[in-house]
């Protein structure tokens, strides 16, 4: 039986820790400044669902897209300003006072609800079961423009 720890283990451990620290540093730069024209972009199932200015106070119910674990019996291709609410499978996104949070979700793990509020550009809240991603983006940011234009 070989010993518990060998030299290659230590090298691998150091390499992984360096990789972790480097990626942390890289990612933390994303959530730095928030410009006045930041937008809250809501994507459902990989497609743009809606976007709102960060300084607008609004509550949105986002139905889960079809093809998820919790297939929505009441249809999915509904626009953001559709009047009908209370889907069986949904996430409720609240924008208030420059902060975004998911206040309710039909999913089991409730990770998105416990995530808390985000307020800086580059931050995001994810609900995997309902395939929802809520991101704060700068209006000037490339990704938002490429989708809308």
């Amino acid at each position, binding site marked *: 039986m070989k010993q518990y720890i060998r030299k*290659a*283990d230590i090298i691998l*451990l150091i390499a992984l820790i360096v990789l*972790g620290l480097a990626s942390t540093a890289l990612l933390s730069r994303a959530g730095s400044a928030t410009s006045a024209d930041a937008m809250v972009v809501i994507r459902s199932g990989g497609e743009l669902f809606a976007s709102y200015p960060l300084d607008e106070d609004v509550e949105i119910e986002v139905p889960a897209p079809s093809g998820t674990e919790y297939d929505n019996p009441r249809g999915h291709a509904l626009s953001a300003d559709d009047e009908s609410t209370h889907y069986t499978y949904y996430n409720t996104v609240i924008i208030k006072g420059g902060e975004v949070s998911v206040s309710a979700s039909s999913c089991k793990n409730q990770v998105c609800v416990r*995530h808390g509020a985000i307020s800086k550009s580059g931050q995001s809240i994810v609900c995997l079961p309902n395939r929802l991603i809520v*991101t704060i983006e700068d209006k000037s940011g490339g990704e938002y423009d490429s989708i809308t234009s």
Partner: protein
Amino acid sequence: MTASPRRNLSASFIARVALMAALALIFSYIEAIIPYSPGVPGIKLGVANIVTVIALYRFGARDAFAVSIIRVVIAGLLFNGLFGMLYSLAGALISLTGMILLKKTDRFSVVGVSMAAGVLHNLGQLLVASALISDLRIFFYFPVLLFSGIAAGIVVGIVAATILRTLR
């Protein structure tokens, strides 16, 4: 899988794999019923991987593959759900492949191999998650999952190494 059919499905292989898969399943179950909320999905110890590591070192890659796949599929049907199974399957396949390759180099100990497996497992899950949500921004979670993978892998590796030493 180049061996003869007889060797491939010998009674001892079936019995051994069934036993280990059952054990791994119990570990999965115990871990599933312990309530804790790490805040990020995918962070867990992965106690069942102790069985996979032992299967790999004691009986070889074929046993480890069989035990791992059976465990993931049944655990998915029983408590993780279809999508949970998809995440676990990606994680299990990528981490097992990594473990087999690292073990072949013969430079790493059980703990090192298990540590790499922990990281690769989380990476596999992250890849599935980014594919499902069609957004690479989920790699925001990468650092957290990397460090938790290192920690979980080391703990699993130390336990597996201790058991393997006793088994000899």
